[in-house]
């Protein structure tokens, strides 16, 4: 894959707990002390039941090479060792049968929510990207059973413009036939979330937040966000939050 995103497969050397979509792992890029800290990543998929090839299962990540740590991860070769801590944090809440789930991803945010399409087969996926080249394999969208909607900034794939407009149209269409609860599970840049707040969507929106992290387990208090219930740490109280609870600065 050479679209800025790359896939990383990790075979744990001890058994891991089954992760919930929206949870994450801390990965250490290399053995060096620079970069110093582990980096948080959601998983796109996993194999948890041991088999011959993967006695402790397999974790699959989709990563955007944006800086020092992610570029080191990109250059790892088969056989390299990594420090891994996880699964960590609280994932997306379970969706009830009478609820209608819509999944929204912006850019590399796809990595955190793609797993939802596997758990909730046939769920609608809304995916916004800058340009066609960025898109991971469309094979990845197979669990949506064709029920995916793409928007790109440059119109090179899907509709030109914001994926949130697609989402909004879809919801008003849906509302014609459905009056139950709509849940939106989203992962994307914070700007996308702020836009969602402004749109005042007729749905319960849960989003996965990204902040720099040090410990990943709630002890350093470095990844705090302001919520209506006071400061919360993204790594332990989140990373998934109800959008309405978050207080955005500026």
């Amino acid at each position, binding site marked *: 894959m050479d679209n800025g995103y790359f896939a990383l497969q990790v075979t744990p050397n001890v058994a891991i707990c089954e992760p919930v979509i929206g949870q994450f792992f801390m990965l*250490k890029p290399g053995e060096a*002390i*620079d*970069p*110093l*800290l*582990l980096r948080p990543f959601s998983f796109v998929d996993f194999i948890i039941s041991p088999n011959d090839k993967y006695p402790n299962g397999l974790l699959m990540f989709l990563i955007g090479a944006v800086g020092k740590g992610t570029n080191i991860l990109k250059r790892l070769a088969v056989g390299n060792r990594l*420090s891994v*801590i996880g699964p960590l944090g609280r994932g997306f809440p379970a969706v009830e049968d009478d609820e209608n789930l819509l999944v929204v991803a912006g850019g590399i945010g796809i990595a955190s929510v793609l797993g939802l399409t596997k758990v909730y087969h046939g769920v609608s996926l809304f995916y916004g990207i800058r340009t066609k080249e960025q898109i991971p394999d469309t094979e990845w969208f197979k669990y949506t059973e064709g029920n995916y909607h793409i928007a790109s900034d440059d119109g090179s794939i899907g509709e030109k413009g914001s994926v949130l407009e697609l989402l909004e149209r879809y919801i008003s269409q849906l509302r014609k036939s459905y009056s139950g609860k709509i849940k939106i599970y989203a992962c994307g840049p914070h700007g996308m979330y702020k836009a969602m707040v402004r749109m005042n969507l007729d749905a319960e929106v849960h989003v996965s937040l990204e*902040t*720099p*992290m*040090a*410990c*990943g*387990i*709630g*002890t*350093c*208090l*470095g*990844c*705090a*966000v*302001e919520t209506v219930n*006071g*400061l919360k740490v993204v790594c332990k109280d989140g990373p998934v939050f109800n959008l309405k609870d978050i207080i955005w*600065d500026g």
Partner: protein
Amino acid sequence: MNLSVNIGGLGLKNPIVTASGTFGYGVEYAEFLDLNQIGAITVKGLSPHPAAGNPPGRIWETPCGMLNAIGLQNIGIDAFINDKLPDLRKYDTKIIANFFGDTIEEYVEAAAALSAADGIHALEMNISCPNKQAGWIAFGTDPALTEKVVAAARKATKLPLIVKLSPNVTSIADMAKAAVDGGADALSVINTITGMAIDIETRRPRLSNIVGGLSGPAIRPVAVRMVYQAAKAVKVPIIGMGGIMTGGDAIEFILAGASAVAVGTANFVNPAASVEVLQGIKEYMTRNRIDDINSLVGGVIC
């Protein structure tokens, strides 16, 4: 092999301490390591009343280090004593309560409240957080004020009193002397060095507090130097810290003059770092046929 050390009246089974603010309230790490194995746990800085700390934008990674401006967020002394201490008491390790106040009166209040609790073995007085206001910072940078606030806290506790020094000073020796004159039984050297980072795209500081404290391997040479200088200036034992990642790093601090060492930022990189540092110390001692860790303290040959 004797690993036990005495830090101003606080006996530790080995010289490994966890640094305040980098090990939560201790219990969170029980799933990553055997807490009974470490000499002492220093808990997150506590104040008489719960504190919210600084707004988000609290940490940022820098070359071989990190900046933090948590702003001393904590649950407050009462909640610590009621909710965390009972769990901590189950472990066979010493508990050091790191504390601070906004005024001398609050320091006294905090020292008294913590001393009354069961299961706290020593107090570490933080007069050196770089994320507080200018007035507060003087507690850790003006020797006269240091001596005054330490003397006040000294009267409020019978527990071993460890004073944690700021590296953001012209003379660490003078600060060490002031703390000892005020009645410190031991010193922790060093807290974080004040630093700053700017996002050149948004032009905003990476930390909401503008400045924060630099920790991690980047600061180790500065920390080793300050331990060396403080150890020459005073006779009380020193807990050395600043960028310790391995047993070898710890030995460097001990040779410089530290009687114990604290593992800080390394806990974020590897939650079991403290026991691995201990392991490294033991291997070094075995390799070099050293029976007693105390024989290494201040052993640098200058």
